């Protein structure tokens, strides 16, 4: 198969050796879980249980509000103790359920839809929607929305994303090794829903074992298992579509504009569980890694488990603490509060020791142009950064500020150690705020 080239990209050490060989362990069910009402892009869910109610694992406790939203389910059996503000992954307080666990039993499926493929395609989407599934690669976009493109956007390409290009993370890698047939069934379901002509499962070349396992599992199917070159951000949606189909999602557009739907392997697995067993999204696999943690692990964790529980389970800090990150080192979010719970989009917990965390004093841009070379969107991050620095938001917007995917490649490569992504995010916020203001007038 001919692979196409997206611009730019970087080659950081992938650091996956810390956890790639470790089978997924089930983390013990915590005494309390904290489930935010908003674990997804879109409107926060609306609670449907009251304080004091007893809930069973898998019960719906909050209902999606509107189309772009997602249900929330109890990840443990227990009693709702509170619905209150609680620290979230973005460093803010947001409403969350506090559920005290009374029983650590796993979810018991009530259904076995062996005949799912004989159902009309559109009838499968409500199962996914009901299960509260969102993009588990980190973007947390409600999956049922992605699977319901408007009539005028026919989908001919289904891409399953097993690239996992973020350094350190191995959750998707382990999932493919340990549950290939479940993933395959999920792909078949997705194919049934979308009726796409082409189906690809893309895996980065640094996971030859996963490629082999998936190839063997999918031998008698029309699914193309594609080994894509190791280059960050190969797993970014637009870059992956370009690599496989040579189509470019237009600026400001969505994958459906070029006839493609991309689903992460973790999401695909959750879709399979939802359709086959009626299992809602109440747990996920994540990688606890970095040279700061005593025992790195791949864990299956109930949603709502606080970071502190997971750190204890893995032996805590091995060295002087540096950074505690939810997600990978390129796009993950720095944490300062270990009460923060695992949510639907938590793909990993990364602990960097103090001596791996540099203290940088940004210099003036020396115009070396490395950020321009590595930008996977063909932007000029040096100018975007400088425009942001001097509040020249109109100029920044003219230089396609809003097309930035915040992958961090420019900031990684910058020898002057300029916080380019941070400056770009600031400018993006300002531009959007001003547009909203202008629209109101």
């Amino acid at each position, binding site marked *: 198969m001919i692979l196409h080239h997206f611009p730019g990209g970087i080659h950081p050490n992938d650091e996956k050796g810390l956890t790639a060989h470790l089978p997924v362990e089930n983390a013990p069910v915590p005494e309390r879980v904290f489930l935010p009402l908003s674990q997804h892009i879109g409107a926060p869910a609306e609670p449907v249980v009251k304080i004091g109610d007893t809930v069973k694992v898998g019960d719906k406790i909050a209902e999606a509000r509107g189309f772009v939203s997602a249900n929330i389910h109890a990840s443990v059996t227990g009693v709702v103790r509170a619905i209150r503000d609680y620290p979230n992954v973005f460093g803010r307080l947001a409403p969350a359920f506090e559920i005290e666990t009374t029983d650590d039993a796993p979810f018991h499926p009530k259904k076995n839809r062996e005949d799912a493929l004989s159902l009309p395609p559109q009838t499968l989407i409500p199962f996914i929607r009901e299960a509260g599934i969102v993009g588990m690669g980190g973007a947390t976009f409600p999956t049922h929305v992605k699977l319901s493109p408007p009539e005028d956007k026919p989908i001919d390409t289904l891409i399953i994303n097993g690239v996992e290009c973020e350094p350190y993370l191995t959750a998707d890698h382990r999932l493919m090794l340990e549950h290939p047939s479940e993933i395959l069934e999920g792909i078949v379901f997705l194919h049934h829903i979308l009726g796409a002509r082409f189906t690809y499962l893309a895996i980065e070349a640094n996971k030859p074992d996963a490629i082999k396992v998936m190839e063997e599992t999918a031998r008698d199917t029309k699914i193309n298992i594609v080994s894509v070159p190791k280059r960050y951000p190969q797993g970014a949606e637009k870059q992956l579509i370009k690599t496989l189909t040579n189509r470019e999602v237009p600026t400001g557009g969505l994958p459906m504009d070029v006839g493609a739907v991309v689903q992460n392997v973790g999401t695909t697995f959750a879709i399979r569980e939802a359709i086959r067993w009626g299992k809602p999204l109440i747990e996920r696999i994540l990688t606890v890694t970095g040279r700061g943690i005593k025992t790195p692990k791949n864990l299956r964790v109930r949603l709502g488990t606080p970071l502190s529980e997971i750190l204890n389970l893995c032996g805590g800090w091995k060295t002087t603490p540096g950074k505690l990150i939810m997600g990978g080192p390129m796009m993950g979010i720095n944490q300062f509060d270990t009460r923060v719970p695992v949510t639907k989009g938590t793909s990993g917990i990364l602990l960097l020791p103090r001596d791996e965390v540099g203290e940088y004093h940004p210099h003036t841009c020396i115009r*070396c*142009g490395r950020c321009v070379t590595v930008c996977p969107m063909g932007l000029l991050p040096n100018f975007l950064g400088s425009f942001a620095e001097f509040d020249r938001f109109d100029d920044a917007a003219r230089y396609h500020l809003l097309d930035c995917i915040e992958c961090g490649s420019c900031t990684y490569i910058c020898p002057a*150690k300029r916080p380019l992504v941070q400056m770009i995010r600031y400018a993006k916020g300002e531009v959007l705020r001003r547009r909203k203001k202008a629209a109101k007038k």
Partner: protein
Amino acid sequence: MKDLLVLSSSPHIKSPETIPTIMFQVCLALLPAIFVGVYSFGVRAAWIILLAVVSTLAFEAASQKLMGRSISIRDGSACVTAILLALNLPPTVPWWLVVIGAFFAIVIGKQIYGGLGHNPFNPALVGRVVLLISFPAQMTLWAFPSHTIFARVTDTLSGATPLGWAKTHVMTHGTLPDTLPFHISQAFLGQTGGCIGEISALALLIGAAFLIWRKIIPWLIPLAFIGTTFLITGAFWVANPQHYLNPVYHVLSGGLLLGAFFMATDMVTNPVTTLGMLIFGIGCGVLTSVIRLFGGYPEGVSFAILLMNATTPLLDRWTRPRVFGEVKKK
């Protein structure tokens, strides 16, 4: 305190490359040229380089102190400027000329604009061109490398570089002689007259190869620069070999290689886009050729690069790359 978590925006890992590591590698890449310069012109060349470094660092520190900025002489950029300035001087220059050059390079060429990253022109070339225009006699008084075949014709030459010799010969005699008093291999190895750092093409190429391998400099600018110069001077040579010098001399002698690999590639003063770099390199080549073939000076690399430096902001604006997913406006 030390157990507190560090907080910052993503990404949380960064490449080990910093401004000092870049500058250090540029200095390293200039070592072969420095070595050939000192070997050919003796200890005097070493003193010139050393004086340039010391005075440049002093001017940088003093001007930063005066302007209330933090002193950044350790970032290595002033050191690169100093070495490039020294390598662009004839080995005969008096010491005070070096100091004046350093002053103009650092204070006028760099710090006045706001320091590293803000200067529109290559500082070393600003220094050199000020000296060339203000002290033409001292700046064109060439010495000859020790033990060379070239030395036997010294007394008949008024300008000692191959380019200067050719220009003078054509002006006085109307044509070039059938046999030239120098040979291509001499220009390649460093046995012709010239500035301290420009005489050996081989030494410069070794350094350049290192920088391209380390991705410190883009290969596009030197290729476009040298290629354009070769093609234009070559076209004139083919049309009239009696009047114009073989293009190989244009490439190997004079400041072309030093300029193309080490000064046109100065990241602060050249475009950041690929197309911009291509135009920049071609522009340098065209200007260099025009000055060399038709100008009053035998050499035009410095002027060409400085003129193209001035176009950099425009080139960056005009050659913005196509954004991923950008649809052409109909």
